[in-house]
């Protein structure tokens, strides 16, 4: 059977900060790596992000956050993903996330966390290695 699967990624910005430079740079890099990148703009609620991921049937969600609210927003997003049955979606995050918070976020199921200055190649490599295989 002929299959032409493309990796679909949602780049989302939860919370109230309005700096999406990083998110856009990553989105652009992933596009140039041949992926289909859905970008939804600023100030998304966890509900909006998860519902968008569902409708767009994405393989990966990238969360960008600089406000420091990740400890409140990320658990909610992961919980909603579970509720909606989107357990085969891989989640990674970027932005300003203190070192000591990382283990906790990884425990939630967030696969990768990338701080400022991470080369986009690193993120692409990570994604290609970790994108869930679908049946």
């Amino acid at each position, binding site marked *: *059977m002929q299959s032409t699967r493309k990796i679909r990624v949602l780049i989302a910005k939860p919370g109230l900060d309005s700096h999406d430079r990083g998110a856009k740079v990553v*989105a652009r890099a992933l596009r140039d790596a*041949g992926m289909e990148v859905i970008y*939804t*703009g600023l100030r998304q609620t966890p509900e909006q992000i998860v*519902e968008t991921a*569902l409708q767009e*049937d994405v393989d990966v969600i990238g969360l960008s956050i600089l406000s420091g609210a990740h400890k409140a927003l990320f658990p909610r997003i992961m919980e909603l993903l579970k509720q909606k049955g989107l357990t085969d979606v891989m989640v990674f995050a970027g932005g300003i996330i203190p070192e000591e918070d990382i283990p906790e976020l990884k425990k939630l199921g967030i696969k990768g966390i990338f701080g400022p200055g991470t080369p986009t190649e690193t993120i692409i490599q990570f994604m290609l290695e970790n994108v869930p295989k679908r049946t």
Partner: protein
Amino acid sequence: MTKIEEIAKGVLAGDRRSIARAITITENNIAEAQKVISLIYSHIGKTHIIGLTGPSGSGKSTLIEKIVRDYRRRGKTVGVVAVDPTSPFTGGAFLGDRIRMQELSTDEGVFIRSMATRNYLGGIAKATKDAVKILDAAGKDIVIVETVGAGQSEVEIIKVAQTVVVIHAPGLGDEIQAIKAGLMEIADIFVVNKADRENADKAVIDIQAILQLNNKEKPWKTPILKTVALTGEGVPQLIEKLEEHRQFLKKEIEHKKSLLRAEAELIEAIKEKAVTSIIEELRKEGKFEELLHQILEKEIDPASAAEKLLRGKFKKAVSNA
């Protein structure tokens, strides 16, 4: 039940996850896509399919957001397929139409799907038609397709949509150049968006001049409407026109059906008259009675008798022709 059958069943039940999966299948796998469509096919045909096309920056996404809200206020459910271009160099795509539709994403009566062209030409993706069928089968009252930013040759939308809305905005360059050929001809409704800008009226007049020529022989006269998508101004009027066009299409279909019905009735009437007059004539000629007796005596069967009677008649008809 196979995976595909389960997804198709979910689509028909309106399950959002199944709708999303089904659309992915139509994008990725031709054989499975055919299977999905065949399973839902008997349930499609109830939705009003609206195509929205026009140049980049004319305000398509913003206008769609307002159109969807208006339909929601009227109690309609809506599906949106928003198409953006795939890079011919990398095969990747940046799908940003949702930026303007953020708040719609948690409305359960709305389903939005972004779709990359994957280098299909004509302003939509190859899978767009199937995605529309899936949303139709899922029970959406209205399905809106947003094409890529289109100029002259991106007219594939007419094969998908029942009503095509062409949107333009003043100040995007030479008003008419961008739209004069292809797009102008496919419009069922013309919208001049950003109508609060100073040269909006000039754009309307320019477009009107061309449309008047196009409209002359058409039963549906393409109207021009003014909108300001940012504020929603003019959107209720646009919805009214969309509804009007839908009624027009219904009437056209009804008219075609009436023609077919009239044809069937006429054929039936001709048959009756022809048979009666042929039989009358045959009786007059006397052969009819003669053959009846032969049939009774089993000298000939009824079919052969009929053939014998009619052979002369048909020859007459053929030689007359």
